[in-house]
């Protein structure tokens, strides 16, 4: 079976600085207006300890929101994104109750739910990810790479114990230069 082609948004909360650029990008992209309430990604703040967690639809493989929707309005697109079809949604918000991340949110303009649509294949990619270029708290990667960065970070902790002592590369450069 071929590997999945779909790309997903990976969150590294440790890198989030709480600037809300992603919210502003999402809001203006989808509504042409600016407000966090219009954004499908939300930064949850724990300000007293300066810690921020971006919450966004993880497009679960076995998505509870798809199962729970009484109108079959929650669907998976070819891109992998799980979205609400406005014409079918009755605004019952069952998906907001069942989402384990609280990532399916209510569109305050029409009362129906909304979640990340990966900007529907926009040439810039998902706007929130692009807005986070410097912080890199959000990345858009192939599904099989989702755990790569985290895995490597954790591995480094183990590897540091196993590594030989650091050496000055210049000091030993003779072995390569002669």
């Amino acid at each position, binding site marked *: 079976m071929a590997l999945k082609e779909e790309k997903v948004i990976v969150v590294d909360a440790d890198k989030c*600085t709480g*600037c*809300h650029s992603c919210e*502003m990008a999402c809001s203006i992209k989808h509504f042409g207006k600016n407000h966090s*309430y219009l954004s499908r990604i939300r930064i949850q703040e724990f*300000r*007293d300890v*300066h810690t921020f967690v971006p919450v966004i639809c993880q497009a679960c493989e076995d998505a509870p929101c798809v199962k729970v929707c009484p109108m079959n309005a929650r669907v998976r697109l070819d891109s992998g994104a799980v979205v609400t079809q406005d014409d079918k949604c009755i605004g019952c918000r069952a998906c907001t109750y069942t989402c384990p991340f609280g990532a399916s949110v209510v569109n305050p303009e029409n009362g129906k739910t909304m979640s990340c649509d990966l900007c529907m294949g926009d040439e810039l990619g998902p706007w929130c990810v692009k807005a986070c270029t410097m912080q890199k708290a959000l990345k858009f990667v192939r599904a099989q790479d989702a755990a790569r960065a985290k895995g490597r970070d954790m591995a480094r902790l183990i590897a540091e114990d196993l590594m030989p002592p650091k050496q000055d590369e210049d000091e030993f450069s003779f072995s390569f230069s002669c």
Partner: protein
Amino acid sequence: MADFHGWRGRRLRLDMTNLTYVIEKLPMEHYTKWVGGRGLNSDVIYHETTLGMDPLDPAAPLCFGSGPLAGTFAPLSGRTTVSALSPMTSSVMGMDIHGHGDTNMGGAFGPAMKYAGYDQIIVKGKAAKPTWVVIDGDRVEFRDAGHLWGLGSKKTTIKILEELDNPDVRVACIGPAGENLVKFACVINNMSAAGGRTGMGCVMGSKNLKAIAVFGDKPITVAEPEKFMKQCWDLRDRIHNSPSAIRRHAEGSMDLFDVGNAIGINAYKNAFAGYMPRIEEVYGGLQWAQKFLFRRKGCWSCPVSCGRYTLIKEGKWAGYHCGGPEMESNCNLGCRIASYDLAGVNVLCGVVNDLGMDSISCGAALSWTMECFEKGYLTEEDTGGIRLEWADIETSLKVADMIAHREGFGDLLAGGNVRIANKLNKGLDCVPHCRGLEHISVDPRITMGFSLGYAMSTRGSDHLKNYSCLEFPGCAKSRAYQIEEIFGAEGAEKFWEDFPKEMTELDTKPVLCTWSEKNKCVADLVSCCCQAIGSWGGAGSWKEAYYPLFKLITGTDMNDDDLFKAAERVVNIERAVWLRSGSGIQDDTHVDRFFDEGVVDGPFKGKKLDREKWAWAQQAYYKCHGWDEYGFITPEKAKDLGLDEIIPDMEKGKEICKEWLKSDKQPTTPVFIPESFRK
């Protein structure tokens, strides 16, 4: 009523005496004239105060202003300006003369104000008891702040967030310093983002207003969304690819230590030494990040996130964490008191911030005391047994707390350096200040643009008014096209002839400062960050960075010249607050010591200010602005800017100024005033 985009078209007036509020609609003409943020505030400060008014008078206004870009996708747009008559500043004519005061803070307060539907909040009156205010869109509620009184800014914010149970609330509050009317108390928003200078927290405290919590659900619309989005991405891309932005992201504003010390401009020992040995080893941006960086901190919608959150990992202070510091905090509470104990300095920064004091003025108060002890001007008898020696962090922490609570000697220091020196009649020569506000860390004897900027600033000595960063060789080189824009082809040639020595000469500075002053002002008007068009400068100048965004979001028919002229109008109205009290040329100057004493060490050892040259620069600067030889706004200039109403005030002020100059009255601290004006 015109449809507003970007702007909200409304402002909120809070009456603390009667605990009532009024929502005012503003006409489009008002915005065309004052644009936003600092401009809206400065209009109120001039027009709703009177000559001789005490800044702590209940009738004096305190304004929070944000501009059309605040709270939008436009990058760098999280800034808010807080303005009032400044209790901190004074004139050389007397301590009771106060001028325009304002301070610009990051964080997210301005955006939240916009979401609530206001461009500006004006506070007047005085509550009978400590009060805080909740603003939820059109609903305003005054609540008792008894349980918050006495708390630091962080705890206050946490309690309010808990009480309202809404994580989207943004809080601007004061710490104990503001409550106790410390003259340099600041306003803190978003836990640790400080509106530091000129004592705005003191004014807030005088109204018994502990905090304002604001939120709302009104989205900000855009006149031309498609073009606006494209322009935002364009600017964001420029920032993402700017090496200086990447460095600022990595090192925070602490990257300036390395640059600053290379040209010898960091405050050391009360800002008179001019150079601190080994500074880059201890204070450098990368070293700081490796040792203390817990996480970066971003103002609203800013991709750079130059803010820091500190965690002390080892040693005596291990486990302490706090928001900040910025480079200026570290420098003024560190280098300025000659400390190499960076962990301790970070703690001091955190504590001073939490107490709600301006870290620059607080550092100045501490270092003034230290120098006075060193010179023998002060003894333990004056201070109630406390001895402050250079680099003593422990005692500094104690004294900072005493200042905030106005205990013992701290009560005196809480008045600011010029006031205390005058009161004790001691250490008058140890106060580096202009208009009663102490200098920041950059030595005014070396970089002449900053030097002129301090003296001419509309809020007292500070770099963030005439932010003439283009004088720094690195900035000038990377933005050479701006030099030509400012000086013209011929002037630019002259500029490059003297480069890089040019930085230390006054010749080009009147022109540069006049331009930079307006450049910075535009950023404040639209509520964007001045660093992006100043110190790291990766966004270009106001014209490339902010004008197109401003135009596209508001759909205004103002062209770029109109915006630049609005900036000039704002600078003039701020200065007019000083001028009407007679404070002109006698305050546009530096203390004698910078003319007499050279820099003690470093690449510019021995350099000092030149009196003759300074007198020339004053006049040249006035000329650039179209002011007269006393630095007063001429009737023609006032008319040109649409400020006809200030003309009588200017005439009266000029009489006061002339009378004082001709009298044999001595300035409150020894400053240079050109001889010809004192005859």
